[in-house]
C-alpha cells in the first residue's frame, strides 16, 4: 500500500518564536547570534532582516554594516529541536505518526487520515491555518514519498498537494538540492549543467553512480518512491507483546500449551483489531531458576491466525525444558506488517500462490525443515544450463521474462555432468555410440551441436557443444563435448541430462 506523507518546513522557526515572546520585534529586522571562535555568527534571521540580504552564517559585524538598525539577540542552544518536538506532539491530532526532520521541519505519515478532513487540500489547509494562528510561518506539501514532500515543501511556497503517483512530474522542474544530497554533489551537478532534476532522471544509472556515488541514486529513488525510507516517530509504537504470569510454576507440556494458546489469543485479538499480522514471533518461558527458554517462529506472510501460529510453535515446543517449573510466559511479535481482513470469496477456487492455506503449509514446512529447502525457480537470462534458473526472492514474485522454449532442454538435468566414452566422427558430427556406466548405447537419431559458451564475464572455462541424441531403445540423452578437438589430449565427453 502506498503511503501519504506531509512535510512541513519552517523557514523562520527560531525567529518566529522570539517574535512571539517579544511582540515589539514583530516588524523589526533582527537576528539570533552565537559566538564561534571569538566572533558573533548569525544562526537565524527574521524575514525582515533577510530582505536586506542578511543570511545565516554571516558575521554580525558584516550584517550591521548592511543594516544599522539590526537587533541582535543571543540564540538559545537546543531551541529548534525542542520547538519541533513540541509542534510534532501537537500534530498528533492530525496523524498518530509524526517524526522530527532536523534542522527545520517535521514529517507526518498521513496514510488514510486526510479523508477525515474532507480531502487532502482541506486537511493541509487546516494544518497551515493552525500553524499561522500560532505565529509560525510554514510551507506544507503532501506526496506519496517522503522525498517528494520534502522537496516540494521547500522549493514551492504555501500549501501543495501532489496527486498520488505524481512524484516525478512534481520533481522535474526542481533544482538538484531538492534531492537532499550533499553540497559538493550539488556543486558538481551544477558544474555539469544539470541544474534541474529533469536533466538527470533520464541519465543512465551506472554513469550517475560512477560520478556521484550511490547517495544520489538512493535519494532519487526515495523521492520517486521506488525505495522506502525509514521513519522514526516521536511517539514510539507500543510493542506487540503479551505476558502471562503463572500462579504456580508450570512444568507440563499441557500447561505450556494452554499458556501459549492464551497468549496467542490475546496477541492475535490485538493484531486483528489493528489490522496487522505478525511475521516473526518469539515465545519466552522464564523458569524458576532464573533461566529463560526461547522458541521463535517465522511466517512468510503477515498472519493473525491464532490456530496456525499455535501449530508453528507446537513443532518446537519439545525443545523447551521446563526444569523446576516456568513462572512467566512472554510472547512478542518482533516484526508486524499490515494485514487487511481476508476477502470473503463467493466460491473457493483452486488456490494460486496467494492462497492463505498454501502460505500456512509453507510456514509449517519451513518451521520443520528450515526455509532453505524450499525453492521456486524463476527464469534467468543465461544459456549456460547451471545458471538458467534463479531462486525467487518471495512467494509472490512474478517472473520478469518468459521461459525459453526455442532450444531443446532435458527434463532431468544431472547435478554434475557424468563422463562417458564416445565414438564420434570429427569435426562436428554427433557421436555414433557412447558408453555410460558400462552400458553401451548405439545412437540412432541426433540433433546438434548447440554451442554454449561459459560466459567469460562470470566464469572462465571451455565452451560446451551439446547434442541431443536418441539410442536404439528410444531413450533420449543430452551429451556435450568440452572444448575444441585438440591434437594433444582426447576430447572429454559428458552426459548432462535425460529428455522425456
Amino acid at each position: 500500500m502506498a503511503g501519504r506523507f506531509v512535510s512541513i518546513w519552517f523557514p523562520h522557526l527560531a525567529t518566529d518564536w522570539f517574535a512571539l515572546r517579544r511582540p515589539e520585534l514583530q516588524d523589526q529586522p533582527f537576528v539570533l547570534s552565537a559566538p564561534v571562535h571569538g566572533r558573533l555568527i548569525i544562526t537565524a534571521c527574521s524575514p525582515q532582516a533577510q530582505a536586506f540580504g542578511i543570511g545565516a552564517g554571516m558575521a554580525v559585524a558584516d550584517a550591521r554594516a548592511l543594516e544599522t538598525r539590526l537587533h541582535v539577540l543571543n540564540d538559545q542552544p537546543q531551541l529548534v529541536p525542542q520547538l519541533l518536538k513540541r509542534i510534532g506532539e501537537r500534530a498528533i491530532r492530525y496523524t498518530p505518526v509524526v517524526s522530527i526532520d532536523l534542522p527545520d521541519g517535521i514529517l507526518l505519515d498521513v496514510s488514510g487520515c486526510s479523508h477525515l478532513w474532507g480531502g487532502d487540500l482541506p486537511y493541509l489547509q487546516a494544518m497551515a491555518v493552525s500553524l499561522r494562528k500560532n505565529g509560525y510561518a510554514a510551507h506544507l506539501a503532501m506526496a506519496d514519498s517522503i522525498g517528494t514532500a520534502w522537496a516540494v515543501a521547500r522549493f514551492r511556497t504555501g500549501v501543495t498537494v501532489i496527486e498520488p503517483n505524481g512524484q516525478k512530474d512534481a520533481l522535474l522542474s526542481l533544482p538538484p538540492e531538492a534531492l537532499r544530497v550533499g553540497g559538493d554533489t550539488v556543486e558538481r551537478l551544477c558544474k555539469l549543467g544539470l541544474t534541474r532534476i529533469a536533466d538527470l532522471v533520464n541519465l543512465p544509472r551506472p554513469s550517475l553512480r560512477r560520478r556521484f556515488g550511490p547517495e544520489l541514486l538512493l535519494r532519487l529513488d526515495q523521492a520517486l518512491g521506488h525505495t522506502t525510507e525509514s521513519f522514526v516517530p516521536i511517539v514510539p509504537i507500543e510493542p506487540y507483546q503479551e505476558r502471562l504470569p503463572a500462579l504456580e510454576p508450570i512444568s507440563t507440556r499441557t500447561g505450556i500449551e494452554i499458556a501459549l494458546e492464551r497468549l496467542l489469543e490475546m496477541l492475535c485479538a490485538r493484531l486483528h483489531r489493528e489490522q496487522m499480522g505478525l511475521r516473526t514471533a518469539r515465545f519466552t518461558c522464564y523458569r524458576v531458576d532464573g533461566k529463560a527458554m526461547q522458541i521463535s517462529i517465522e511466517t512468510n506472510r503477515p498472519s493473525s491466525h491464532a490456530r496456525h501460529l499455535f501449530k508453528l510453535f507446537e513443532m518446537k515446543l519439545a525443545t523447551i525444558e521446563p526444569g523446576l517449573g516456568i513462572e512467566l510466559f512472554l510472547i512478542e511479535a518482533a516484526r508486524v506488517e499490515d494485514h487487511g481482513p481476508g476477502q470473503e470469496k463467493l466460491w473457493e477456487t483452486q488456490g494460486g500462490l496467494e492462497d492463505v492455506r498454501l502460505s500456512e503449509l509453507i510456514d509449517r514446512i519451513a518451521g520443520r525443515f528450515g526455509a532453505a529447502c524450499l525453492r521456486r525457480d524463476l527464469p534467468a537470462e543465461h544459456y549456460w544450463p547451471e545458471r538458467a534458473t534463479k531462486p525467487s526472492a518471495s512467494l509472490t514474485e512474478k517472473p520478469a521474462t518468459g521461459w525459453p522454449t526455442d532450444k531443446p532442454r532435458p527434463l532431468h538435468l544431472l547435478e554434475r555432468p557424468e563422463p562417458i566414452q564416445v565414438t564420434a566422427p570429427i569435426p562436428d558430427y554427433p557421436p555414433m555410440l557412447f558408453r555410460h556406466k558400462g552400458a553401451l548405447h548405439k545412437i540412432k537419431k541426433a540433433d546438434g551441436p548447440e554451442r554454449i559458451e561459459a560466459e567469460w564475464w562470470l566464469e572462465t572455462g571451455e565452451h560446451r557443444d551439446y547434442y541431443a541424441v536418441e539410442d536404439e531403445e528410444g531413450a533420449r540423452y543430452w551429451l556435450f563435448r568440452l572444448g575444441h578437438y585438440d591434437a594433444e589430449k582426447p576430447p572429454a565427453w559428458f552426459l548432462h541430462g535425460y529428455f522425456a
Partner: protein
Amino acid sequence: MCPAHKNVTCKSALLSHQTLLDRNIYPHKAEKLNLLANFDLSKRKGMNGKGQGEQTNKADILQRLQRDISHLQGSKPACNMQYDFGLGTIHRAFPQGAFPLGAVHEFVATNREAAASSTGFLTGLLKTLMGTEATILWIGGSQDLFSPALGFFGLPAHRIIRLQLKKHKDILWAVEEALKCGALAAVIGEIPDLDFTASRRLQLAVEHSKTTGFLLRCTTRPLSTTACTARWRITPLPSAALGDLPGIGYPRWQVELLKIRNGQPGQWNVHWQDDGFRVEQPDHRIKSQPRIKIA
C-alpha cells in the same frame, strides 16, 4: 451383450460387493442395507431375464450400483469432468471414463531414462491440472528436474514450489501434509520405496482434500502392494518423426497402466505433439488382469 456375460458381471459385482462388506468399508449400516436391497432386486431380475426391457433395466441398476460403490470408495466423478487431459482412448480405462482425481497415482521406473519419461508424461497431465492459476508442490530428494525444460510441455515452472528433503521419513511427512492442505492442484513426491501403511495414509489424506497426488518411484526393488488408485509405468520409445526431417522428433512413450481401481489396465503408445497427448492405435488390452481391487 449376451445374457450370460451379464450374469458373469453380476457375479463379479456381487463378489466385490461382498468383499467390501466383509472389510467393513461402508460407513453406515443403513447404506449397507440399502445397497443390499438394491442388489437383491437386480439379481432377481437378472436371473429371471424375461424380456429386453428388463435387460436394460438390469444394466441401469448395475451401473447405478457401480456408481454407488465407487462413491462410497471415495471417488468423486462430478469434479473429474472439468478437466480434459486429451488422453483419448486411455480414458476408457478409467472408472466412469474420467481420470481419477483426488487420488494417489504412482509412476514406477527402474532406470533414469524411464524416470525422465515418467516425468514427461506427468508434466503433460499437470499442465491440464494447473490451468492458469493453481500451484503444485514438488517434493523430492534429488534436484534433477530442470525447470526451463518444462516450458516445452507448456507448464509454467515458476508456479511449482520445490521442496528438497533428504530423509525418506521427512518426504513422506511433507507429502501427507501437502495432500491435506487443499490449496494445491497436485502434489508430486519422489518416493522410491512405499509400504502399504504409508500409502494408506496418503490415500486417506486425499479423500478429504480432493488434491491429486503423484508419486514418482524410481527403484529396482520389487514393488509391493500399495493403496494407490493407479500404478503407471512409462518407458521411452523411439521418437515420432517430424515429417521427413532428420533428428529427434516428438517425445514418444509406452504408457502402461498396470493397476487401476475400478478400471481396466492397459497399454498404449503415446507421443507429445503440439501441446497435447496423441494416443496411437491401441495395442492389445491386458486381459488377464483382475478387473477390480488393487488395494
